[in-house]
């Protein structure tokens, strides 16, 4: 009976802080043909923050490789990857989540880094060892932002 009460208390505690409990760790992300159908956090992505993460050179740094007219105030957009104007017309939310999480499962051999893996790379600088480039919520925020990039 004591154990049951303890379990109930713990369950109640985590239910109150859904974000921590529901975060999918990098190794547990389920892919289906490169797409990820379930939110990594259960918290709706914040597109405005995603736009900042996208542009931040120490976070997404997406402009290093992708042009994006929505961020025309930022100079020098890269050309390594495809332009992202209209990305939401071409890809579903689940596909975009999969591409940001680990694009190698969608595009074999791509140069694009996986933004939500914390293992499987070699010789990382010590301060990045065991870490993902973005947090689960940052991925969700970037995906929410990408879903605003529509031309049609």
């Amino acid at each position, binding site marked *: 009976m004591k154990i049951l009460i303890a379990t109930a208390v713990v369950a109640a505690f985590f239910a109150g802080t859904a974000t921590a409990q529901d975060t999918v760790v990098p190794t547990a992300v389920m892919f289906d043909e490169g797409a990820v159908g379930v939110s990594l956090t259960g918290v709706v992505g914040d597109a405005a923050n995603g736009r900042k993460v996208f542009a931040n050179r120490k976070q997404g740094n997406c402009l290093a490789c992708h042009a994006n007219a929505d961020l025309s105030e930022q100079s020098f957009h*890269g*050309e390594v990857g495809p332009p992202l104007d209209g990305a939401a017309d071409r890809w579903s939310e689940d596909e975009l989540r999969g591409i940001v999480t680990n694009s190698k499962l969608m595009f074999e051999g791509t140069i694009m880094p996986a933004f939500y893996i914390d293992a499987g790379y070699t010789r990382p600088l010590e301060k*990045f060892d065991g870490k993902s480039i973005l947090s689960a919520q940052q991925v969700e925020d970037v995906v929410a932002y990408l879903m605003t990039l529509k031309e049609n």
Partner: protein
Amino acid sequence: MNTKLLQTVAALSLLAGVAVAGEDATLIINDEETMVTEAAAPAHAENLDRIYSGWVFRADETQVLQMDDFDNPAFVFTDQGQDLYDTVDGTAGESCANCHGDVDSFAGLTAQMPRVNSDGELETLTELVNNCRTERMGAEAWKYSASQMTAVTALIGLQSRGMPVDVAIDGAAAPYWERGKELYYTRVGQLDMSCSNCHEDNYDVMIRADHLSQGQTNGFPTYRLKNAKLNSRHGRFKGCMKNIRATPFKEGGDEFKALELYVASRGNGLSVETPSVRN
């Protein structure tokens, strides 16, 4: 040359009329020495058709700095290299000049470095200099990319300027070259990228404000506007690795030496441009 570059060249030509520099410009130094900045790729660089000096990818104002030795900021440092070359250092009371005479006796050496020595070991020019210092001069070794070292190796490199890069990759060099090739194509770091991802698959493409080159080393040590000094090959490798959030190999270590040989070999046929100017 890929389509995008051709389009850019065409657009530039229309706009500029007469090109002073640019992607289709010819690098002529001091109005007399013409450099080979584009050539057919050597057979062992099997994924490239053409090879291009990094000079080709730089902005006009950077290109121009290398076209006249009075404008080239690297010559401040090769002058320092000349002073070091002539100065006695160490317990044996020798200078470089005492044994080697005029530095032009080194003409041709840099075009062939790194190379395998008589002990079967791959040796870089930097190591040759330090071996002389410690074994013959009784002087302290310089740090691998110390300012004195890049000054002297740039001065020695200058003696080969205009000669084609021609490093040996066969015979005793083969295992080192294979090791370097393996490193070139191995992804590392949190960003999980290899040299080839940028410098073979995406050269001539903009990565943010940087025009990706083939990563050729024929102009090293090179003066970079970014840090206003001469930069060694291994120092540049280290910088690239940090950019992709990888723990760099050790400067002067076996990995970077092997990579130096492999990358140099991809430039066989380009002119030695040492000391070049890059951004």
